[in-house]
């Protein structure tokens, strides 16, 4: 038994809900009316495009194409992280790309190969949506982490220099900032993990249940997804900072000017 289909006409009825925030934004003069309309339109076009594309990809189920799709997602994610963190593309793009690719693919390999034990590790039905979910979650956390880390490093130069000048190794001096940014980036994920099921029903579980899965199976998947999100997010954030550190400091331990 699958989820009940939504006709195009009914989908149109669903769009009527968007009128509510638009009216509220106009009433309160928030200035987000156009942004909301554009975002809704973009979301619709993107999802229809992805839906059509995924249908083809699922039908082909070719490992190389699946991998290529995931690599494209990782590249777009890396560009987005660097842009949103307001960091220099020159120094940060490659390290961030390496960090996201390493952590997401490692966690993917463990989950799909060891836990689910897929015969075909790059199976489009599992590999693409699960990687997408991991990347999506890593994205916002990584933006928070890099933003907080490098902006506080550049705003609190004296703190870093004081440590460096009075006996701290470069790693010790940087660890103060790393600790703070890890807390800021990972706290929301840990909080979400702690309350899942109580105040929020995650999208994946809901989707599986609507798709006709046994709720117990859906829950098991959801548990694994929460764990993989937590681990891949932590890995991405730590690796991003550690790899970036190798490129963005000069020989004196000072942040390069970008």
């Amino acid at each position, binding site marked *: 038994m699958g989820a009940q289909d939504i006709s195009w006409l009914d989908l149109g009825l669903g769009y009527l809900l968007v009128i509510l925030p638009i009216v509220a934004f106009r009433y309160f003069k928030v200035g987000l009316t156009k942004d909301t309309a554009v975002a809704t339109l973009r979301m619709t076009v993107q999802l229809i495009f992805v839906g059509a594309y995924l249908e083809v990809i699922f039908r082909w189920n070719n490992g190389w194409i699946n991998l290529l799709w995931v690599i494209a997602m990782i590249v777009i994610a890396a560009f987005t992280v660097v842009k949103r963190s307001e960091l220099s593309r020159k120094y940060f793009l490659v390290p961030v790309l390496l960090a996201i690719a390493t952590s997401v693919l490692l966690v993917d390999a463990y989950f799909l190969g060891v836990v689910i034990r897929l015969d075909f590790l790059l199976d489009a039905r599992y590999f693409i949506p699960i990687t997408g979910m991991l990347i999506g979650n890593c994205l916002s956390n990584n933006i928070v982490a890099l933003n907080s880390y490098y902006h506080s490093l550049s705003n*609190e130069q*004296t*703190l870093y*220099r*004081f*440590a*460096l*000048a*009075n*006996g*701290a*190794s470069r790693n*010790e001096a940087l660890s*103060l900032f790393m600790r703070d940014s890890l807390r800021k980036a990972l706290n929301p994920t840990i909080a979400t993990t702690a309350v899942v099921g109580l105040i929020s029903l995650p999208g994946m579980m809901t989707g599986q249940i609507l798709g006709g899965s046994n709720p117990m199976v859906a829950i098991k998947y959801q548990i694994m997804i929460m764990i993989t999100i937590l681990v891949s997010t932590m890995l991405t954030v730590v690796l991003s900072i550690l790899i970036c550190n190798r490129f963005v400091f*000069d*020989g*004196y*331990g*000072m942040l390069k000017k970008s």
Partner: protein
Amino acid sequence: MVRIEDLNVSFGNEKVISNLSFELSKGEKVAVVGTSGSGKTTLLNVLMGFVKPSRGVVTVDGVRVSASTIDSIRRGISWLPQELHLKLDTVRELLFYPFGFKQNQMMQPSDREVEEMLSALLLDNSILDKQLCDISGGQKQRIVIASLILLKRPLLLLDEPTSALDSVSKRAVVDAILGLKHVTVLASSHDSEWNDAMERIVDLNSK
């Protein structure tokens, strides 16, 4: 101990230090003076490798400051910045902050050394248990100075060390600094009392 030869530092098109040359002998206590923006802080930053000169040579203990030598040079220096906001809770944490770094762990001062140092700076040992938010700026400044003296590095760089001190505690800090026979001190200051107490003055405005 320190040799500065034809030092020039620019930030973009703005020249901050021009053709500065001087030497510091071992154990000497020198004040760097000059109007705001004359390059006092920049000079200390050059010695620490935080700012790179556009021209000139800086050597510490015969070793030229460069990317390959800066780590070992920094191991022989203590540096007091003009302003410091460490995210710490207690005075004890502030005093022992540098001793938490691996390199300084062997240098942990004894209780007696700490007590003597605090007393020399007119601070009572009980201050260690106070919260940082409960002590004055002057007390905090003296705690950091105490901490750096206890590190026993051969070169001490102080950036406005008396900015938050009253004249009595200033005198105590001066006496403590002058009493460090084997430590070379280079301090930038606007404070005439402090500058008069130092053995020599380098005036950046006279360049």
